[in-house]
């Protein structure tokens, strides 16, 4: 009897525009297909319901731009999804109207993740974002007015042309809005993308100057009462004791099982991981015929599972319990990392030091068998 998953991810791929740097599965426009897509999602849910627990801890609607989905379809979807303690929806600032905010709140959404990225217009243009700086501020206001008390902002740093003072100003502008949560990512220019083609040279030129941006972000946010609980994620530490970490994402980092619905969505249940094919037409076709969509399945042997537990666990600020994970570690590499003051082997647990966390990727590669 397989242990049911308590976390559900739903992918809504539709966007008004595909930003140059984006590497998610997205579909531009196609408003005519939103309804059909939601139908398909609900059918896939029916097919897989056996994998889900009766009570879910979290539901996450990611994209794409979930709030670009035609509102009636979005609401119909939210209504039909199982209830959960945390229901997060990703939103682009320019899509958040007072009406949308109220509708989401009314449909049981508890948390909004807002793709702000930057507050400099010039840098928004580089990223090809539709939103303007003021859209972020008004979106926040509408969401607060509708009663949302758990809002996350996404910020991107390392944008071509972004100076250190631009970054500091972005952090100022974000902190003024007092979000419960912040995700801060370094811009990744993937080889071969349109974005890299356009900006790769500029980024390479700026690489040295931007080297300390990560440190600046962490210093500024931790200095402003935020907890650096995951490599790229920060949550406000409130006096009322609310845990404001993203519960859904925390489930990934803790190695929990999850079900993913929609094109390109990934599910991991016990020792199986599968990814739905990213093609919209084929997905709609399969589910309209009552078949599961095409999937790429990966078997996770115990060694792989253990390595993933270490890789994900070391992203968090809490020490990783090592029970059963020793075989996934490279004893020599771990000893080197300890000697360099990057990791602490506590016997029962393993943790990275503060400097170790800045070098988390390299340290993890060193430590993993």
């Amino acid at each position, binding site marked *: 009897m397989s242990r049911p998953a308590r976390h559900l991810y739903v992918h809504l791929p539709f966007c008004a525009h595909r930003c140059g740097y984006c590497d998610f599965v997205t579909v531009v426009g196609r408003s005519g297909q939103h309804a059909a897509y939601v139908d398909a999602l609900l059918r896939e849910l029916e097919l897989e319901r056996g994998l889900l627990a009766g009570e879910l801890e979290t539901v996450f609607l990611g994209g794409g731009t979930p709030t670009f989905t035609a509102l009636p379809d979005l609401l119909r979807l939210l209504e039909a999804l199982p209830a959960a303690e945390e229901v997060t929806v990703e939103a682009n600032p320019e899509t958040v109207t007072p009406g949308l905010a109220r509708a989401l709140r009314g449909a049981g959404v508890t948390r909004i993740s807002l793709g702000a990225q930057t507050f400099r217009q010039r840098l928004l243009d580089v990223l090809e974002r539709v939103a303007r700086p003021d859209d972020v501020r008004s979106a926040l206001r509408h969401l607060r007015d509708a009663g949302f008390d758990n809002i996350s902002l996404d910020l991107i740093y390392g944008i071509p042309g972004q100076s250190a003072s631009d970054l500091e100003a972005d952090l100022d502008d974000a902190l003024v809005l007092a979000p419960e949560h912040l995700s801060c990512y370094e811009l990744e220019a993937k080889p071969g993308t349109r974005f890299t083609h356009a900006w790769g040279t500029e980024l390479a030129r700026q690489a040295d100057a931007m080297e300390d941006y990560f440190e600046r972000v962490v210093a500024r946010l931790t200095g402003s009462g935020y907890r650096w609980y995951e*490599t*790229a994620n920060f949550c406000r530490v409130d006096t009322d004791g609310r845990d404001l970490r993203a519960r859904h994402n925390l489930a990934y980092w803790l190695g929990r099982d999850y079900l993913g619905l929609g094109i390109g969505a*990934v599910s*991991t249940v016990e020792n199986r991981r599968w990814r739905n094919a990213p093609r919209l037409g084929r997905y709609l076709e399969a589910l309209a015929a009552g078949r599961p969509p095409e999937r790429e399945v990966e078997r996770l042997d115990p060694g792989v599972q253990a390595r993933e537990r270490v*890789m994900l666990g070391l992203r968090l600020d809490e020490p990783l319990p090592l029970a059963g994970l020793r075989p996934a570690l490279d004893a020599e590499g771990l000893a080197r990392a300890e000697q360099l003051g990057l990791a602490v082997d506590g016997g029962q647990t393993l943790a990275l030091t503060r400097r170790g966390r*800045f070098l988390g*990727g390299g340290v993890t590669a*060193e430590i*993993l068998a």
Partner: protein
Amino acid sequence: MDQARIRNFSIIAHIDHGKSTLADRILELTEAVSAREMREQLLDSMELERERGITIKAQAVRVTWKGHELNLIDTPGHVDFTYEVSRSLQACEGALLVVDAAQGIEAQTLANAYLAIENGLEIVPVANKIDLPAADPDGTAVEVADLLGDDPARVLRISAKTGDGVGDVLDAIVERMPAPAGDPESSARALVFDSSYDQYRGVVAFVRVADGTLSTREALRTMATGTRFDAEELGFFSPAMTPVERLSVGEVGYVVTGLKDVSRLRVGDTLTSVRRPADEALPGYKDVKPMVFAGLFPTDSDDYPELRDALERLKLNDAALMYEPETSNALGFGFRCGFLGLLHMEIVRERLEREFDLDLLVTAPNVAYRVKEKNGDWIEVHNPSEFPREVEEVEEPYVAASIIVPKEHVGAVMELNNERRGTFGRLEYLSPERVHLTHELPLAEIVLDYYDQLKSRTRGYASFDYDLAGFKPGNLVRVDVLVGGEPVDALSLIVHRDFAYDRGRLLVDKLREEIPRQMFDIAIQAAIGSRVIARETVKAKRKDVLAKCYGGDISRKRKLLEKQKAGKRRMKQVGAVEVPQEAFLAVLNIGQGQRS
């Protein structure tokens, strides 16, 4: 075969001027091979040779043409193998000088053409590729005739590709080249011009009978090295091995010796009969010793036994290759190998990688040094890391370099040779256009990038050859490299004291580029003894994280880390520092900017 009806010849040609194609056509036309059997370019049997466009091991093929026995003796075509070429040419009375009619004479052809003339060979000039639209057969004929002091009308015009004119070439061989001289009645003397190793039959010698007759099952002896064996089988290549009872004066063929060690039968040695030995060996034998050394290490230390086996097998067929086990603190277990020259080294490396599927790390080459230690003993050093830190005297090998170059490049050559501690010898005009220069140079100055430099400074026109010219005193010092405070033996080098600072600086700069930033600062130093002469720092990384990791990309991120881990495993560990294999080649690459 009647001695008067034998013709022994080689083909001399620049790379890609059509030597192998012409050889193929000759085999076809004389029906030595049917078209069906015909593999493209039959003579170049090794895969590597074909890809590099060079011939490493000579072979000899016998064909018949209009009642004559023609032996085509193949020659290697590079400066490292000058000695082998000269032995092959010694086995001939004539040579075809093949020149691409679209390219004209090129530098590399000259050294071998002069070698052939020195050996007293009758040269039959051939302008090849006349079917090409860009071909200039008349211009080429004039150029070749000038070179040889011959009549342009006697330059044959052919296309080996289409077969046009190949019959005329065979006729010219018969008509113009002399039959072999030699006394059929005197004691047998046969020149060993090459050998190869067969795993079932042992060493097979390729020979040219100079006097008398060799018979099957006869007891034979090499005159220089004194090795004795019975001739288990005699024969010739047609091109398949064809046994015969005897090989008589003037003939070319093979001798199956049954010897298990190729080094006991050296190229250039003379075979004679044990029962009725000759008094005097044929001239020209030299004991060829490796003068260039490098460390060969498997990139994966588990492959050490495979590398050892592969070297053993290569050695069977390559008497000039030497090797002994070496242990490096940075690179682990490997072998210090001795080579004739850089190309020889390159060929061995490629054969190890290709035929034996080994991944290798080859350290920068160095020469042999003679060192007088404090206690007065002289030792020979093949490895910079064994070079004593305190020495009384040092001697290094010199070469007599011979360079033929168009006159407008004389200045460039003189300049290069001065930079390389050369001493000018003489200058003579071979023709109004072409100059022959001699210099004496330390061998160490030509092992790194001399040939490349010479080529690039003379636009490819220089033809270069050298002979070893003994050891001479040198003001040499050992420069060590320290990475993160740890000496890296594989990066030590011996260098003239005047160049030590520049080389140390360049090496340290290069290493700073090659060693990736790590999780701590890394000091890179060059030092003579305990005195640091150059220093650089690779700054510690300040960030190294996978920015995002959510449910959708756990597998991909895991694979990225696994790849990063595999990359770490390929690095060599120097103390806590991970040094990429490429960094060990840094010493090889500092030549370019060295003194320009």
